[in-house]
């Protein structure tokens, strides 16, 4: 079984306390952005440093995607939404719960990193999602 790979570099890290999304905070204006880029989208500042975000948040918005968007390689249907993290950042994310009736605004969510699909050579590809539930 090949070693899993992340769907993209620099999105998340597995820590002893569970997975964390990797944002960047601008040294100039102090604002957070995710995914991390070299310059700040708010002020153009070129000096940003990594900020691992909390692994929990509150569900801000949610829907369900039933037919595969272009290029999508995971299962259908899937939950799709926005989770607000304690740092004040709102993050677009896949949701593990594909039934909108089981989701509600403001509910506690936790970050998970899990295999979404396999590459053609069988390598599992890890992506991030949020699952209902406050603590891992």
């Amino acid at each position, binding site marked *: 079984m090949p070693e899993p790979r992340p769907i*993209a570099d620099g999105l998340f890290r597995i820590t002893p306390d569970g997975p964390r999304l990797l944002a960047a905070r601008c040294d100039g204006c102090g604002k957070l*952005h995710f995914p991390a880029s070299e310059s700040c989208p708010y002020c153009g500042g070129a000096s940003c440093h990594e900020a691992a975000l909390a692994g929990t948040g509150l569900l801000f918005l*949610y*829907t369900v*995607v039933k037919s595969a*968007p272009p290029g999508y390689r995971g299962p259908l249907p899937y939950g*799709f939404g926005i989770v607000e993290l304690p740092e004040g*950042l709102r993050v*677009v994310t*896949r949701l593990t719960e594909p039934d909108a009736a089981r989701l509600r605004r403001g509910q506690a969510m936790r970050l998970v990193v899990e295999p979404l699909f396999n590459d053609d050579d069988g390598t599992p590809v890890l992506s991030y999602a949020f699952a209902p539930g406050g603590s891992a």
Partner: protein
Amino acid sequence: MRPVYVAGTGLHPFGRFPDKSLTAIGADAVRAALVEAGVRRGGFQAAFCGCVYGGVASGHKVLTALGLSGVPTVNLEAGCASGGAALALGAAQIAAGVYDTVLVFGLEKMPRGMIRSSFFEPWREEAGLAATPGYFALRAQRLMFESDVTAQDLARVSVKNHLHGVHNPNAMYRKAITAEEVLASPLVCEPLRLLMLCSPNEGAAALVLSATPPAAAPAIRVAAVQLRSHLAGNVLGEHTPLSGIADDDVTPPTTMAAQAAYEQAAIGPDGMDVVELQDTDAAREILSAEELGLCPRGGGGKWVRDGGGEMRSRRPVNPSGGLLSKGEPLGASALGQVVELAWQLRGTCGPRQVPNARVGLAHTVGRGANACVAILTR
């Protein structure tokens, strides 16, 4: 600055035309606009063409097909506002005195199904984070959570625009629908149903702009045209970022463009007689109305329930049927609105005519996020 007049208009119907090339679709609209303006080869000094999915030199190919090449020709991509960007550049050239007559046009032949966009990184597509209707749905849900907009209000917008579209021979869908039909149509992405979403399709629109008013037709002026892009922050902005912040103080690009256009034309939202605005989904129409200042922020639900935008209201919105009826050919949609406004201001719209329309506003917003607002006056 010199005034800018509409000297000619041309439109290729919006729909699906599997046997017709993109170039031929564009050529029909351009030819019609030139004939109406009485302009031939040598009669215009520059051309600006909006197109997103047409590939290299799509505008040049149209002019070549018509034997009109040779003039400076610029192809523009600004997402759903591509045609608006062409109008903004063309009008500015005339206002500044660079050229006396300019051709602006937009054309598109959209891929079928959910639209693939090179805007997204491949990993983001693989991860399911490039689901365009999903973003529309989240925006609709937010509107419903944060104001009193209901699913019935969304249905009412679809019913209105489809009713308007019945009278537009250039629209793709020309059948009136009921709120019950909208609410019973398949759920695409909660809370949006199939009949609350517009279809990508094909079409073209063209205008000849001139520094001098036309001799025969009523003088329609492009009194303002403003293009703006987004500010960072709104997680639901048309630039579809993967994160955002609390965005109450982040002005949306539509509002920025509208405020600048109202100032340029020296006419505010209350002075508009007819509006064509972005209704890629029913909730987008309500949000557009709020962002344009046609109703108070958070007052979109009441606006709909009070009959806002209906033909019998003081300021009809999307008398053409909107994108919900016409479908959306990205590069052409903005200029399609402007052509509709020119016809409304001339008073030639027949059963969909807004009585005594003298001031009209056109609005598009799309990926980038680019927003364009144009104001036409008679």
